[in-house]
């Protein structure tokens, strides 16, 4: 499979009161054409900052310090605004967190879709847009009459389907979805997960799924990246990562998820993520790591390296 999106050495900083914190710290990853790629990690680990830098949505006090984002052979960060506008939504669609609550309450759904299409494509006639909207609605499981409704007439799950339909209207190659199931009930959540998988199969859309919920990743993604304190600490096929997590943080994270019907004692991870204004030297995880090697982990920063077929980890316990 060919690489659709390549992130190289991406470093994003937020600055306040003269202090700089690295929200994304030298991130490297490759997303393959046609896969569902998961990005996991706990609050404030940099998942959303990473996604919004791909779409060039970082605003001051945030700043991309260095790195490249190559999409389909094009370096996105070097494009001018007009060139980039053609890629956003047409090639890369983005579903930000809680966007189902951001639909315009006083506009019918169809008019909001019309707005999106007209902003990007002047060459579509109204008939074409309507036909396309009805087709997309059918494939996300919504009846055509929903187009005439207002957002408040829809349940949360339906609004999320509307947002997904809107993101697909211009047939993008990559769909970035940030916590698309987080505020939904489990039964509705299952429907949305199922839908993302169907879209991936039916249209061949590559999906970057961002969520803190490891169970959701386990259900749908092909490959998974784990972030901790701005760093990508592990990347691999999701099955292998759950069977044999390599990074101590991944191991502890998986051990702290409860499973329905199991009473096994949950470990949790003692301590807290570091304050990124004063990051620890060496590995970001060393203050909480049970396998910390004195003199090494607290001094030398581990780099993400290949340790087995398809598996990368940033940890001194493994040799490349």
């Amino acid at each position: 499979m060919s690489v659709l999106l390549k992130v190289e050495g991406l470093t994003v900083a937020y600055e306040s009161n003269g202090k700089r914190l690295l929200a994304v710290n030298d991130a490297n990853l490759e997303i393959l054409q046609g896969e569902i790629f998961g990005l996991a990690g706990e609050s404030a680990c940099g998942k959303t900052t990473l996604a919004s830098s791909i779409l060039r949505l970082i605003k001051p006090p945030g700043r991309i310090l260095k790195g490249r984002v190559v999409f389909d052979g094009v370096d996105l960060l070097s494009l001018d605004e007009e060139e980039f506008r053609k890629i956003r939504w047409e090639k890369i669609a983005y579903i930000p967190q809680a966007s189902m609550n951001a639909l315009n309450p006083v506009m019918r759904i169809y008019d909001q879709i019309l707005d999106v299409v007209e902003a990007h494509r002047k060459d579509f006639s109204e008939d074409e847009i309507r036909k396309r909207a009805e087709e997309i609605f059918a494939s996300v499981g919504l009846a055509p009459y929903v187009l005439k409704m207002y957002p408040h007439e829809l349940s949360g799950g339906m609004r999320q389907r509307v947002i997904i339909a809107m993101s697909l209207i211009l047939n993008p190659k990559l769909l970035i979805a940030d916590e698309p199931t987080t505020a939904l009930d489990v039964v509705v959540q299952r429907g949305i997960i199922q839908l993302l998988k169907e879209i991936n199969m039916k249209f061949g859309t590559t999906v970057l799924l961002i969520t803190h919920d490891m169970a959701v990743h386990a259900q749908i993604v092909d490959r998974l990246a784990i972030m901790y304190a701005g760093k990508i600490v592990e990347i691999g096929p999701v099955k292998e990562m759950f069977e044999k997590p390599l990074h101590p943080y991944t191991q502890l994270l998986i051990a702290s998820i409860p499973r329905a019907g199991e009473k096994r004692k949950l470990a949790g991870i003692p301590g807290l993520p570091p304050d990124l204004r004063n990051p620890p030297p060496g590995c970001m995880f060393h203050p909480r790591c049970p396998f910390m090697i004195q003199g090494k982990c607290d001094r030398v920063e581990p780099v993400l390296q290949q340790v087995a077929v398809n598996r990368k980890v940033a940890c001194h316990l493994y040799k490349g």
Partner: protein
Amino acid sequence: MAVSVVNLLEVRNISKTFVSGFLFSKRKVVAVDKVSFSIPGEKPIVFVLAGESGSGKSTIARIILKFIKPDEGEVFYKGKNIFAINSKEALLYRREVQAVFQDPYGAFNPVYPVDHILSITARRLGVDQGKGIDEAIDEVLVSVGLRPEEVRGKYPYQLSGGQRQRVLLARALIPRPKLIVADEPVSMLDASLRAEILNLMLDLKVKNGVSFLYITHDLSTASYVGDHIAVLYRGSVVEMGPIDDVITNPYHPYTQLLMSSIPQPDPSKRWQEKIATPEVSAYKEQPIGCKFYDRCPWKKEECRKAPPPLKKIGNRYVACYLY
């Protein structure tokens, strides 16, 4: 009169309807519909009240905490109706039944150090005989796994979400409660911190003898800490019983749907079959018969006529005509 062990908490047939809109556009929403359950008093347990958004679980919590009155039905604490007790008994109830809520970020007054919320509780509700307020505060902080010197004098913004939720649990422990109503106490916390708070709840149950009414939509954490469960659907209990039995072998079609929709954190246990998710719009009128009728794969004609009663089957209760 037969001598029976008095329940710690007994909720008997409570209902609550909210009315919204004005004059001709008035709409009634039945939030809680004849709900009954009890938490036994012999030994401390974690009783789970589970349901999706809009199932009425938080309304039940607010009734038990006396924030609102039910339209019908009663709530008994140690055999006494909490809406018909004298002020002395009411103070005792306030002491012995405490609450912890979802949002550890919004519960604090940001301009006071976190001690404030602890000392107010200690002053209002009193502490054990012979103990100073400071001593009592240090003691509860230690019992929730915090070091008093690291927490006292700190402002809320200086603590993490997990630490704040611990402080709120510590606050609830000051008057030596018998029951803590915990409404989604871990849903805003990260997985690694969540496990620690859940373990703390189990610890407090065993060491301090505190029972919990754990209100949640998350059946994975419920199954981890819970002993008993009542599953709510649109204001009614559809199934109730020992949690391990209900989760591993659910009887009610809604409980079955709910259990099969929990994503397993295991890529080798992915959902195989597709479920049809009938998308209902945000508003729907209250049906006369079973509320799950529209979504039920086994619906029959009789299900539409009257709501199914909660029947005892073995060690649990189920409201479904299939049984």
